[in-house]
């Protein structure tokens, strides 16, 4: 009698738990669809980097299904609606995205969920830098294409056949700025910049949050300096890397000031951090308003919205000593502008009133990349073969919202094609509280930092 109770109870408990575990959200299995998944930071401290990206990729998929693609490919690709045109068939695209809640662990779980439950053939993300290695080791053996549009790590691409990083890495950006500080006075003058800007500047500094993006940034900065042949001094050891959650930046900036740098590269992308650092720099004699130092930064520093916010906090970036870069050419040609004008209202109508917000250069880049990838799949002629997709995608160029003819990058030292999507970097300055394009841009000068991992991921 007593044991019967146990059996019933065991059965009930088991059934309940089974039901719980197995009844998790599942997608219906449809045979002929192209399964495309994404892992984004949609909540938590870094959600601002994920919301617009997810929105843009989702928009790209929707536009593709509608047959209303904005970006054009070279050679031309059809965009007929209903999905990918593969041979005679039209293959619908199935898009699934998960939120990693700003946690690396969650983002790995999401990657596995996409691969093993949703059977995705290509995965967008994760962005979390420290999750990349884990994701790579899960995705690569299965030949799953992985794409990241705002990643920062060469770990996304180096030695990885299926890994594709679209433009933005901690290392490569620093090569862009590295080129800029080595410019000749003539070229500076030619573009309306004070030719004496870099005269007598010798020591470089670096400040950023302690994370992979910044660590790579600092390594890239050292590479750029070495490439310049000794005109400047910088060591990776000098980098000031403040920990997560830092509230008072005074000691960190003091450490930077102690090194007495002539040029400081601020590698941060979170407004409150950046403002706190910039305020503190002014107070501690690293004044970029008076030319005490030159402040260099990344694309976030060169956002008009940031310049406006900084102005509200009493920071004047218009002094001629603050420079940064963007991938997005502010002085676009007419064809590109026409595409932007078509795209922006669609995006804004869809997301403008939500927490995603209105269109910016970032979502345009992500949209470009997503459409480009889908064209690549279509051009391969076989959406089930990732090798063919990669091959076809790498031979496709696009005329995107960011500018014409984006393409994959070839490493100058080996001539080998890597997974790095090439996009030109444009040097940006601020004058009269508005960001402006200097006319200086870099393309072939940017190259991979082979020093981070050599040619393969760490084993």
């Amino acid at each position, binding site marked *: 009698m007593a044991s019967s109770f146990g059996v019933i109870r065991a059965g009930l408990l088991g059934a309940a738990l089974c039901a*719980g575990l197995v009844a998790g959200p599942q997608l219906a299995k449809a045979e002929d669809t192209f399964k495309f998944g994404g892992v984004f930071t949609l909540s938590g401290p870094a959600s601002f980097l994920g919301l617009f990206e997810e929105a843009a990729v989702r928009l790209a998929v929707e536009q593709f299904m509608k047959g209303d693609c904005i970006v054009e490919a070279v050679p031309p690709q059809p965009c007929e609606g209903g999905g990918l045109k593969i041979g005679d068939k039209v293959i619908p695209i199935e898009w699934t995205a998960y939120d990693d809640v700003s946690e690396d662990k969650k983002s790995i779980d999401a990657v596995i969920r996409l691969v093993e*439950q949703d059977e995705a053939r290509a995965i967008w993300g994760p962005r979390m830098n420290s999750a990349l290695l884990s994701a790579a080791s899960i995705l690569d053996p299965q030949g799953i294409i992985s794409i990241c549009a705002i990643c920062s790590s060469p770990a996304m691409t180096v030695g990885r056949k299926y890994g594709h990083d679209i433009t933005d890495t901690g290392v490569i950006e620093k090569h862009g700025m590295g080129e800029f500080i080595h410019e000749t006075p003539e070229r500076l003058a030619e573009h309306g910049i004070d030719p004496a800007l870099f005269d007598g500047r010798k020591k470089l500094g670096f400040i950023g949050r302690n994370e992979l993006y910044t660590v790579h940034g600092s390594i890239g900065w050292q590479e750029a300096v070495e490439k310049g042949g000794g005109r400047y001094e910088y060591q990776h050891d000098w980098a000031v890397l403040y920990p997560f959650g830092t509230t008072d930046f005074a000691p960190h900036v003091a450490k930077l000031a102690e090194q007495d740098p002539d040029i400081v590269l601020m590698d941060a992308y979170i407004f409150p951090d950046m403002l706190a650092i910039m305020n503190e720099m002014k107070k501690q004699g690293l004044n970029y308003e008076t030319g005490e130092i030159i402040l260099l930064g990344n694309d976030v520093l060169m956002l008009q919205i940031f310049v406006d916010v900084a102005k509200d906090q009493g920071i004047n970036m218009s002094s001629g000593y603050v420079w940064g870069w963007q991938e997005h050419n502010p002085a676009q040609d007419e064809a590109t502008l026409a595409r932007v004008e078509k795209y922006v209202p669609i995006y804004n109508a869809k997301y403008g009133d939500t927490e995603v917000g209105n269109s910016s250069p970032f979502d345009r880049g992500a949209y470009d990349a997503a459409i480009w990838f889908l064209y690549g799949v279509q051009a391969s002629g076989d959406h089930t073969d990732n090798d063919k997709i990669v091959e076809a995608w790498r031979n496709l160029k696009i005329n995107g919202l960011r500018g014409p003819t984006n393409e994959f990058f070839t490493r100058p030292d080996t001539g080998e094609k890597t997974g790095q999507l090439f996009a030109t970097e444009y040097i940006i300055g601020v004058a009269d509280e508005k960001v402006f394009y200097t006319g200086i841009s870099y393309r072939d000068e940017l190259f991979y930092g082979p020093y981070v991992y050599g040619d393969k991921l760490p084993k």
Partner: protein
Amino acid sequence: MTLLPAHRISLRDRRTRAVIGWLVLLAFLGILWAVVDNNYHLRLLVGAGTAMIAVIPFGLLMGHMGYLAMGQGGFVGVGAYVVGVLTVQQFEFDFWAALPCAIIITSALAYLLSYPLFRLRGYHFAIGTLAVGQLLYIMFDSWEWFTGGPHGTAGIPRPALGDYAFVTNQRFLIVVLFFLVIAAFASWWLARGHVGRALSAIRQDEDLAAARGLDVFRYKQLVFVFAAGFAGLSGALYASMQIAIDPSSFTIWSSFQYVIYVIIGGSGTLLGPAIGVVFLVVLDQFIQDFGKWNQIVLGGLIVVTVLFFRGGLWGGANLLWHFALESVGIRQIVAQALGAATRGK
């Protein structure tokens, strides 16, 4: 040594219920292992099993002994990094060779730390362990030459026996379940008899226990090292499961996670923490639908559990069972149903 003497088998007996609960849980995991073919669900199971290996022994420290340690994630991290460093970088150890190292190093660390830490009690102990956890995290993050720093360490192998490699989740789950049974059995073995009584005496009134001649420190040290050793084992399996590890998996929040498992499941029992893991892993799948609000759901759940379900889920289940047994009506209904079923045969 029998799990249950025959005369004690009664559903009113706590121990009987615990044994049944364990058998159900293990049978449940075993059945899932056999029937689940969705790799993602298998992976959730692997994750849950790995967490249980750390949580059940940790429950002895937290529930049975009443010492709240808020740095357990650090010990799991040590286990993971020992395996990570030994199997990957310069050393290229086999997983099976690295695993005991992980356990030994973690236990040794806990042994050393137990001397200073157990001079503390209550909140002081909690915050002392928090400090240890935070220091370990800083170490993982800043000893780049050893741990890879923010890069982490990648390419950790999954174990193999001869030609049989536990590479798939289903195979790896065998390894995890094996160690889970060891962890559960060892904890049960430790919690019974004099150690269990000593722990309970320490929880109720440590000074009194010491005054009665109990070597309180030795017992505390034993349980602390025991919990840390299994945390190291769990970390080693975690590293192998994840293939790549980095410091962000071993922050203060990961330490809190272990505490949450124990409390939600039911502290003071061995089964409770294990149930807590299963429940939270399943719940996590559902509250993903709450999207950005899921932390609120989890936080609210913790508050409600602490306020209203003092024994956690397992305590609540026992209470329900108790009411069911005490309520004559239900008993009759069940008895009739069973009678009908037997007659049917």
